[in-house]
């Protein structure tokens, strides 16, 4: 077979063929194109690049944690770094208890509010409630922490806990912090469900509740899931408010019904409380970055699981939301 392109190329290089006019405009266009393309690509890559740099930095500063301290000690039960106790377990458990608590409180509340706002509430109520909920998102976390400290903690102590500074107090504050995210994203997801679905369900004689439960919720599942995941992300990374209300005692509560009512120390609060005191380059300093790595990995795991779940749902529906 004769390779035409090969022949053209040979003749072009030998100077037998010229594309003068064509090649000039092509070149000019190409420069503009290249510029814009690089700009857009640069913007896209820079995000990944920055995340990569952050991770590299974390690893560089935190790696000695996992090299210099035996693993058995890292998963020990004592956190008292100034005396060389580097057990991360109480901090991990603390973060998980507080985050799980806030999810258990915030997800049902958030989804129910979103359903009420999107499907049941008359328009005039929506117009009042939506901006109010968005205002809740604007409250600085430290203010919520202050409310938790001054108002919530004494209330919880009156319920019979040994102290009002507990994982539950932290979970409540975090739940209120995650609620606006969950509500507004879920409400958007419900709004995206085509009107025909509702009309169709109602036309077939379904009640309003049946329509919501059997049609609207499944149709908006991926959006709802995204709202929940972003809410969890907000909760697990929160620092100041949690530091004020959870008591910061680095111990593992004994399994039982009173786990939520015992004080805990979260990973974020530990980093915030201790970063100021350590001298740079000490083992304690490295371990604080090590905690950062653990936190990063946990958030990364949650995000990728969420991404996969959403992906599966979308694929099952043939690419439709």
């Amino acid at each position: 077979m004769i390779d035409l392109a090969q022949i053209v190329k040979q003749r072009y290089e030998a100077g037998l063929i010229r594309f003068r006019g064509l090649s000039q405009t092509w070149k000019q266009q190409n420069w503009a194109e290249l510029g814009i393309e690089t700009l857009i690509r640069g913007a896209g890559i820079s995000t990944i690049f920055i995340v990569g740099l952050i991770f590299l930095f974390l690893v560089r500063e935190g790696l000695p944690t996992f090299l210099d301290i035996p693993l058995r000690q890292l998963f020990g039960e004592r956190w008292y770094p100034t005396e060389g106790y580097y057990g991360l377990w109480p901090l991990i458990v603390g973060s998980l208890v507080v985050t799980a608590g806030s999810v258990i409180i915030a997800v049902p509340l958030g989804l129910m509010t979103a359903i009420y706002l999107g499907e049941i509430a008359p328009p005039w109520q929506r117009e009042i409630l939506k901006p109010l909920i968005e205002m809740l998102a604007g409250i600085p976390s430290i203010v919520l922490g202050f409310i938790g400290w001054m108002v919530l903690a004494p209330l919880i102590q009156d319920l019979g806990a040994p102290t009002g500074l507990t994982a539950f107090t932290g979970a409540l504050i975090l739940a209120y912090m995650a609620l606006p995210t969950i509500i507004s994203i879920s409400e958007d997801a419900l709004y995206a469900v085509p009107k025909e679905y509702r009309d169709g369900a109602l036309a077939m004689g379904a009640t309003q509740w049946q329509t919501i439960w059997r049609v609207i919720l499944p149709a908006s599942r991926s959006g709802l899931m995204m709202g929940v995941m972003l809410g969890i992300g907000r909760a697990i990374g929160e620092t100041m408010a949690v530091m004020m209300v959870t008591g910061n005692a680095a111990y593992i509560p004994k399994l039982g019904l009173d786990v939520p009512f015992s004080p805990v120390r979260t990973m974020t609060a530990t980093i915030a409380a201790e970063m100021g005191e350590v001298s740079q380059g000490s083992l304690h300093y490295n371990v604080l970055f090590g905690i950062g790595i653990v936190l990063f990995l946990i958030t990364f795991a949650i995000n990728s699981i969420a991404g996969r779940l959403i992906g599966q749902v979308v694929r099952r529906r043939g690419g439709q939301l």
Partner: protein
Amino acid sequence: MLALLVPLRKSVMFATCLLLLVGCRSQTSTADDSGSSRAIQNKGSDTLVNIALAWAEAYQQVEPDVSIAVTGGGSGTGIAALINGTVDIANASRQIKSDEIEAAQKNGITPVEFVVAIDALAVIINPDNPVDALAIDQLADIYSGRITNWKEVGGRDAPIVLVSRESNSGTHVYFLEEVVRKGDSENTDIFAAETLMMPSSVGITSEVSRNPNAIGYDGLGYVTKDEKIIAVAESSDAPSVLPSIESASDGTYPLSRNLYMYTAGEPSDTIATYLDWIRGPEGQQIVAASGFVPITQE
């Protein structure tokens, strides 16, 4: 990718150089006394922060063109800042540790110590709690988790809620060494894991004032009328003494300690004059007025 990395590395180096330059400049500018307006950066112990603020304010009248910026954060925070070269004076409610001196020397800084006041550490409980006095041994057992119920030390049948400052606080370190470990350097006891770690002095006083089962400790100058101060005995057969300016200065109260200021190297003229003023009669009058104990004057 390689081509991308090389300029990046260069720019990182450039940024580091810039940072170093800026760092050097801020250090030399504080040592330079020729200018008409001079600034002193002062940071550290939360125990000292109120007195340090009072000093800085009063010193404005004495030397109007010296401006002093005071921040708290804890003794460890202040000393770390001194080591990293970002403050002129570090306030500390404990002595500097040997590894901190080493770290400072690695950065070319030799910390110089000044005793500026004496503090009595008060052990506080809720006013509803019937307990009035505890021996150091009992306090050690309570804070290391060997005693967990108030009835074991003559109180009600209720769990003890331990409240402490974070480990970056000099007060925390002093309490660990003198109470939990009873001053014995061989002792390796540490705070019980259940101890609530408060990021501030106010955290301790407010938890103790609203929790009937809580016990905490704080500088005498920070105790309010909403908490009850208990008398402390050196040993179980020694008399229990309440903290006060008198009992702290004559040494009968067992938990009194020096409060320090550290400078990076021998202080420059501006800072030396300020420290002399602090340790002089005017400065020490402010110490007494803030509820702390003045250092004895020869």
